[in-house]
Structures are given as structure tokens and as C-alpha cells.
């Protein structure tokens, strides 16, 4: 009989882990605390969906960059399996700054030049790539090997495809306790061959060192704006990015606040994000706000992800602001580990608890 895994959490990490396990012939049950209605409140839905290992070097360390390099190829593989095409682009990222923030821009992009090859990091005339931004910005930094994905379109499609492959997703099923081999819900305890904790910030109470970093973002509809690729505006105090989505929609994010507060988005954050977007393109002034998003990113002390193993229990967490960049990479690393294949950077992402 095939092995049976319980995955706790149907965010992007849980779903991609399920996908890898069924490819190995496992049976998989996914527990999701939110009902299908509330599911869109989870952190994975609030993400920007950028697949941008070079851009992230602005604040992240080398490990995130190296792990992230294989992300786009994995996403291509995932998207190819979906029943219908989704919004997934690989036309790079454009870094911009206003004239007076140039010193900060140079500071923030130093590490991108350090790691990127000439073909991966290029100075460009902004009007050549994004004609509508050419009036306000002359030069920009172009990172051609990056992509972005519409996570809000992707997640429901991926979930239903997995269900079609036999994965059981139990929405609205809160897990009261999880232990090696055991998942306990209000209905009782169930035994599995392995329990995989993909709860993200939901695991904060029983995961040492995990903390929440709040992010806020806006989803807007801007028919007067035509931007083709994610634009990152470097500012000394806020790092704002504008990510195009299908049908003239744009995602404008994101704040980064050392707090796990679930309270509604503040005026201060809104002003920061929206005025930064308005400074990039005046057409945003006429845009309508579709949704105001917030999510709590799960992060370890070094802001790097970790897969911890003990007999019967695995935890994959700490993806921080890199959920969509890193989740396919970590799911694949986990699968390779199960098959005894070598795992790149395994020494840095795996942790083994003897017991």
C-alpha cells in the first residue's frame, strides 16, 4: 500500500509539497484551517508573486538568491500541468529611482551587480522597455531573467488540479495538535506515515524562533496604465513594487513591519504605497482599488527558510518574503531528499532533530 502523508496548511508551500509527494506515488491529505470562503485571506493570496532572485539581493542574502535561481524553471513545469493557462510572465524586472534618491539606489543595487552576470543585469533606457515611464525616468536597471505569476489566479487552479489527482484538501479543518505521525482535529486523532507542517505563520506558537513580519499591499485596476513588467522603486524608506496582473490590474506592495498584527491596513501604509505608485505613473491617480491586502510572512531569525526533520514529522517554514520564489524549490528539495538524491544547499536549508 502507498504511504500516506498529512500536510497541514494549504498555502503555496503545502500545495507544492502535495504535488511533489503524489508524483512519488504517495497518498496526501491536506488540512486547511480556513474554509474555502475564507481561504483567500491566507498569506499566499496576499503575496506579490514575484519570481525575482536578483531583485531580492537588494535585501536578502546569497542563499535566497542561489535557491531562487531555479524557481522560474520549476514554475514553468508547474504551470504546464494546469488545465488552463494562467498569468505567468518572464519578461524581467525594472529597477527605478527618482533622481534625488540615486545614492540610495546605488547602495541598494550594489549586491545585484556583485552576483549578476552582464547578461543578467543591464542598464537600459527606460523608454525602450516601458514607454509610459520614459518621461519620469531616464535610466533604469533591467533584470531580464526574472518573472512574475498571478498567485491569486494560480492557487485555486493548482488546488483543484491536485484534487483531481486524488489529493484530499479538507478546508475549514483546524488542526488542534500535530506530532510525529499524528494529526489531531476536533474529530479525533489520525495516524499518518508522515506529518508535514506547512502552516507558515500559523505555526508561530510551537516553532522556536519563528516570527511574523506583516506586509500590506493594494490590488488595483488601472486602465490608464500600461506597464509590462514588475517595477521596483528604490526609496530610502520604502521599497515599493508594482506588479502587472491580467486585465489592467496591478499589485502594489508591500510594507514590511516587524509585527504579526492582523489589523486592517493603516492610512500611513496606504499613503506610502499609493503615493509611491503615483510618483511612478500619474495614471494610477485614476485607478480604482480592488482589494486591500495584508499577510503575515513567517520568518526565522536569519530570514532564511528551513526544512526540519524528525522521525514522522517535517516542517517547512520561514519563507519570509520569498514564498513564491522559494516554495517550488523547497518542495523539490524535499522530494529529492526523500529519494536520497543530492540536494543543492541542503546543508543550509535542512535541519535534523534526532529523537
Amino acid at each position, binding site marked *: 500500500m502507498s504511504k500516506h502523508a498529512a500536510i497541514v496548511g494549504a498555502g503555496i508551500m503545502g500545495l507544492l509539497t502535495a504535488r511533489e509527494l503524489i508524483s512519488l506515488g504517495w497518498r496526501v491529505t491536506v488540512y486547511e484551517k480556513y474554509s474555502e470562503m475564507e481561504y483567500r485571506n491566507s498569506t499566499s493570496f496576499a503575496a506579490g508573486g514575484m519570481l525575482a532572485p536578483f531583485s531580492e539581493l537588494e535585501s536578502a542574502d546569497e542563499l535566497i538568491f542561489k535557491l531562487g535561481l531555479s524557481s522560474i524553471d520549476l514554475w514553468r513545469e508547474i504551470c504546464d500541468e494546469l488545465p488552463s493557462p494562467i498569468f505567468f510572465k518572464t519578461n524581467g524586472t525594472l529597477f527605478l529611482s527618482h533622481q534625488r534618491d540615486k545614492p540610495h539606489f546605488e547602495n541598494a543595487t550594489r549586491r545585484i551587480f556583485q552576483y549578476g552576470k552582464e547578461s543578467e543585469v543591464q542598464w537600459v533606457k527606460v523608454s525602450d522597455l516601458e514607454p509610459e515611464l520614459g518621461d519620469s525616468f531616464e535610466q533604469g536597471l533591467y533584470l531580464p531573467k526574472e518573472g512574475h505569476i498571478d498567485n491569486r489566479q494560480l492557487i485555486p487552479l493548482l488546488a483543484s488540479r491536485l484534487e483531481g489527482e486524488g489529493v484530499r484538501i479538507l478546508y475549514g479543518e483546524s488542526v488542534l495538535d500535530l506530532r510525529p505521525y499524528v494529526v489531531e482535529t476536533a474529530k479525533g486523532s489520525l495516524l499518518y506515515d508522515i506529518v508535514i507542517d506547512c502552516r507558515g505563520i500559523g505555526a508561530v506558537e510551537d516553532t522556536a524562533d519563528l516570527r511574523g513580519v506583516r506586509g500590506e499591499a493594494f490590488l488595483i485596476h488601472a486602465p490608464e496604465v500600461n506597464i509590462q513588467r514588475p517595477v521596483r522603486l528604490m526609496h530610502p524608506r520604502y521599497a515599493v513594487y508594482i506588479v502587472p496582473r491580467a486585465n489592467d490590474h496591478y499589485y502594489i506592495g508591500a510594507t514590511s513591519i516587524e509585527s504579526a498584527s492582523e489589523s486592517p491596513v493603516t492610512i500611513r501604509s496606504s499613503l506610502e504605497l499609493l503615493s509611491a505608485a503615483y510618483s511612478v505613473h500619474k495614471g494610477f491617480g485614476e485607478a480604482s482599488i480592488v482589494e486591500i491586502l495584508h499577510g503575515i510572512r513567517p520568518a526565522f531569525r536569519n*530570514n532564511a527558510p528551513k526544512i526540519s526533520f524528525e522521525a514522522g514529522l517535517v516542517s517547512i517554514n520561514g519563507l519570509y518574503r520569498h514564498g513564491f520564489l522559494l516554495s517550488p524549490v523547497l518542495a523539490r528539495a524535499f522530494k529529492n531528499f526523500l529519494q536520497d538524491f543530492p540536494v543543492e544547499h541542503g546543508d543550509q536549508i535542512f535541519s535534523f532533530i534526532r529523537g
Partner: protein
Amino acid sequence: MWTLADRKIESRLLIGTARYPSPQVLQDSIAASGSQVITVSLRRESAQENNSKRFWEYLSESGAHILPNTAGCHSVKEAVVTAHMARDIFNTNWIKLEVIGNDDTLQPDPFATVEAARILVSEGFEVFPYTTDDLIVAEKLRDAGCRIIMPWGAPIGSGQGLRNIEALKTMRKRLPELTLIVDAGIGAPSHASHALELGFDAVLLNTAVALAQDPVGMARAFQYAVSAGRRAYESGLMQASSRAQASSPTVGLPFWHHEQNL
């Protein structure tokens, strides 16, 4: 050893905790800097204690005294409310008072700062006000009951160093009884050294370390710079002169032969 608000400490470097790549790097940087006082911005960390508990645990693990600040406040009321919140959360009467007058330049609002300082001092706070290099504002803050004044070297985050050295020198000379800390604008260890050489009691900085390529290495560089600057001040710097003065006598030439050549 020196005394900062009745506490005996060694280090003359106060360090901010924002914008590090990760809490791990932050902790390592604090350790490398030798700093015993760290500032924490409360405004953005959200009011309820539980929300940021773990981040604050990381800060307290450093063993440093915590100096909460009112960064991002624009009015007296906001600053006072934030100070009250900080007192409850961090269990300290220390507060770095920052009332911003202009969001673009992050210049402090001297009028609101003085007013907020008066209120907070009367409520028993030890107020560390962030201000410009203006002597009169500093005097008003002293009159409001502040024992510590923190003039800027240059605007926050600009890294320009000490932009108005004469004003800083004047402040040091006219307010010998106060603890003076240069806060903001320090970009390089040499700037920090310079502030200490001028007789300032300490420097407070954040960006110069947090955004360095190697924050931990830079934190250590600042530790050395601050000790060097202080040691230089205590040792009595020589006075600069407009012309060369040979340190060994020029044998055989009467001095008037040189004078003729001038």
C-alpha cells in the same frame, strides 16, 4: 566607564535596530559594535505587545539597554502617546524623542520637540531629544528638563557626517554640563571619531551599519572609531596651524632667514 542617565556603561556608541537584513545580522552587529544602548522604533512595530514579541526578545537577548524612540511622530500628542506605549512595553522611562517637522527632509520640529520634552520630563521620563545643531533649541530643551541632548550631524540617513562643525563645537562649549550625543547623519567611522574628538559624549547611528555591505564588519569599525575619538579627546588634541612646524629643529639656520621667504 561613563554615565548615561544614571547608568554606568562602557561604550559610547548607541545603535539603531532598523533596516538590517535579518534579526540575526542585527544581533551580530550589536555584539560587534560593543554598544550597550540600542534604539527601537515603536511606531511601526505595532502597539500590542504580542504582535512583535519575538522581535523584541531578540533585542533583549543582546543585553543592551533599550532606548525606545518616537520615530515617525509628527505632533506633540503622537510623540507623548508613543512614549507612554513604549514605557509600558519596554518597562523603561527612557525615551528618544523624535518629532518630525518635514517628512521629506526628516528635519525635527524644534517647537513641538521642546513642548513634548516638557510634558514627558514632568511625567518622569528620561528624555533623549533629537534636535538640530541650533544652540537656542538645545538651551530650551535643557530648560525643559532634559539632561541629554542629541543634535544631528546631518539629516537622518544621509551619511554626510558633521555638516556644521562650528555649531556643534559651540554647543559643546556652551552646554558643558549636559550629555551631548550626535544623532543622525553619521556615514563613516571617521565621522563618529570626529564627533568624539570634539568632546561629544557619544554618537547614535543606524543606517551606516545596517545598510553596509557587511554590517557586522562595519559595526566593529565603528566601535574602534568611537574609542579612538574619545581617547583622542581625553588626550588633548594639538591645535592646527596654518603653516608647517618642523618637529625637529632646523640646525644652523636662524629663524629670520625663513621669515624672509614668506
